[in-house]
């Protein structure tokens, strides 16, 4: 538990790539596809729901903030230690850390998505390049 997800050099990693239009109507396809990948591992039903929500929130952030991105790329790396998800857009984005985070008891609407991603996944990292898009990498580990 709490070990880093092994790299591709260390263990066999199955990779599933998905590219969806950067439009709201395609987010359901992304979350259901990622759930199908997660179900190939030994995640619990609750953990699969967490992963579904996290990837959907990442796609929703891209749709709402990555202006001009034609599509969203979702890379799933499934290994014995867990699942690494990379969600990339190519828009002029807002750094997720600049999207207002929130506190409990807060009635503001903004920042819920980032808050949920951070709450549901074990590792979350952003790589933002102005005018080149945002890469969000998140990991859900399988408990040993």
């Amino acid at each position, binding site marked *: 538990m709490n070990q880093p997800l092994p790299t591709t050099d260390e263990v066999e990693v199955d990779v599933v790539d998905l590219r969806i239009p950067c439009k*709201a*109507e395609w*987010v*359901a396809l992304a*979350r259901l596809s990622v759930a199908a990948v997660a179900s190939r591992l030994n995640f619990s039903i*609750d953990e699969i*729901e967490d992963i*579904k*929500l996290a990837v*959907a*929130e990442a*796609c*929703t952030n891209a*749709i*709402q903030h990555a202006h001009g991105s034609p599509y969203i790329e979702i890379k799933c790396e499934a290994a014995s230690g867990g699942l690494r998800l990379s969600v990339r857009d190519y828009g002029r984005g807002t750094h997720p850390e600049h999207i207002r985070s*929130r*506190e*409990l*008891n*807060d*009635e*503001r*609407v903004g920042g*819920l*998505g980032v*808050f*949920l991603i951070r*709450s*549901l996944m074990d590792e979350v990292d952003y790589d933002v390049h102005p005018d080149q898009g945002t890469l969000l990498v998140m990991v859900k580990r399988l408990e040993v």
Partner: protein
Amino acid sequence: MERTTLDIKVNVREAQGDCYIVELSGEIDVYTSPKVKDAIGDLIDRGVYNLVIDLEKVRYIDSTGLGVLIGGLKRVREHGGSVNLVCTNPQIRKIFDITGLVKIFGIFENEDAAMKALV
């Protein structure tokens, strides 16, 4: 009054007093939440400020769905109203727990209890 899209069904019905029940079925995400927002907004525009939103048939909700519920609550509160939720699905309830929204919404196990807490 019933609205249906591919993934969400919104059923609005009048209950006792000046309370309305909004029963949602399906998945509430960035694509479907505008339909929910419209349905709640229509009621508020008509002067309905006490709502029970029944999530028992909701299989999935994300931050945009939560945002619609928060937005509705803010609007009815401006008129002295309130929004209570019906939710027993542990996965949906968990999302309200981790976001702290359990402290903002009244969440009940059935419509009767949610309505009684409003009136």
